[in-house]
């Protein structure tokens, strides 16, 4: 099986990684770089627990080959917060109680962060649509959605 040397920028750090062809981006993050915030739920693009930003857009990292990411910019949940403070969605989903077991949370955070970047004032329907690929079996989603709504208000107040 072919082995590939790739260069990627992960959470603003340059990394050089040797990956076999059949290694997904998710497994590279977890197993080569110990970024275990990205979760392995279904390995089939259904559950969203492994969502990361690839060149600014959310993807299921279990559905991307690591070798395809040569030259790419990746942001994982570990890279969302700044030095001093959490990203708005992290702060507000935490405050609203949108976390129970926490397994879906990294994916939820990435998807909702990306939503607010492309649409700073989403309505509830748009939030539900953006999170349709992030399954949560604990919260019932209501507090997650309230968290995203609060983050949107926070961001527009800050602008």
């Amino acid at each position, binding site marked *: *099986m*072919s082995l590939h040397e790739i260069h990627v920028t992960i959470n603003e750090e340059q990394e050089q990684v040797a990956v076999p*062809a059949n290694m997904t981006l998710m497994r590279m993050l977890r197993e080569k770089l110990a970024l275990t915030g990205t979760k392995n739920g279904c390995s089939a*693009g259904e559950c969203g627990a492994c969502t990361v930003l690839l060149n600014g857009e959310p993807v*299921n990292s279990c*559905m991307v080959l690591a070798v*395809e990411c040569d030259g790419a910019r990746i942001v994982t949940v570990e890279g969302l917060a700044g030095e001093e403070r959490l990203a708005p969605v992290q702060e507000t989903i935490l405050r609203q109680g949108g976390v129970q077991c926490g397994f879906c949370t990294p994916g939820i955070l990435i*998807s909702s962060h990306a939503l607010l970047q492309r649409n700073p004032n989403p309505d509830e329907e748009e939030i539900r649509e953006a999170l*349709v*690929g992030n399954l949560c079996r604990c919260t019932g989603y209501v507090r997650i959605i309230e968290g995203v709504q609060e983050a949107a208000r926070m961001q527009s107040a800050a602008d």
Partner: protein
Amino acid sequence: MDTHPTLPEFDYLRPRTPAEASEFLSGHPGEARPFMGGTDVLVRMRDGVLTPRFLVDVKGLDGANDLRFDPKAGLTLGAAVSMNRVIASADVRTHYPLLAEACRSVASYPLRTRATVVGNICNASPAGDTIGACLVFHAVLHVHGVHGPRPEPLSSFFLGPGKTTLEPGDVVMAIHLPLPPDRSAGVYLKLGRNRLSDLSIVGVTALGHPDSSCSSGYRFRLALASVAPVPLVPLEAERYLANHAITPESLGSAAQLAADACSPIDDVRGSARYRRLMVRNLTATALAQVWNRLTV
């Protein structure tokens, strides 16, 4: 049961030219597959259904990332153009809103970052959500094979579930949609087990437009998902509407003809009987919605 299966071993290649891709693929029939967004092929590899020795990534080939609209010729989507790019394109939303609507019905935003229209077509699932829109717009595929490039009309492309006219060495480089008919209106009605994101139990695509060559004055194009071994165009229903004055009754008769054309199966998403009834009901609703928009 392994709950966290890894992908089977394979080699990954990135050919530089279509000729290189075709040559490699034709030299390894049954062992090498073209690779686009991967959202179908990786799942089937994970499940052990597919075990290719080589994945040939065609996303780096010239033109693969191009989304071009020419007001004289129509829309061309390269093989690597993601569904999210199609949805976000102002040209698509203006001229082919039906295609954007079909893309939006697929899975989730993160999956659509990767999923492509060309991949959805090559996967040749009878349930493929974007296939109906491409069929009613009379799309043509740009295929590169061992003898060079050739056009391949979508209408004769599908042979069975997962089976197409593609031969070893063929790579679909792009899909071209001619300009939509003047003053056309279209809808895609998708019935899933939930409101968003599921595979379709039944999908109905309908496009209508004024056409003086039809005795009814209008032509309707239809495509049905998940109710036959291939994405189905119910020609009898289309012909009926071309030749009968458009009334609530004639729309209902056409919907029944569409249901009669189906050969659905029982599966985990729905029974054959339910599918047939839903084709009738959803086709009637789709035709009524299109007719309503054509006549306001």
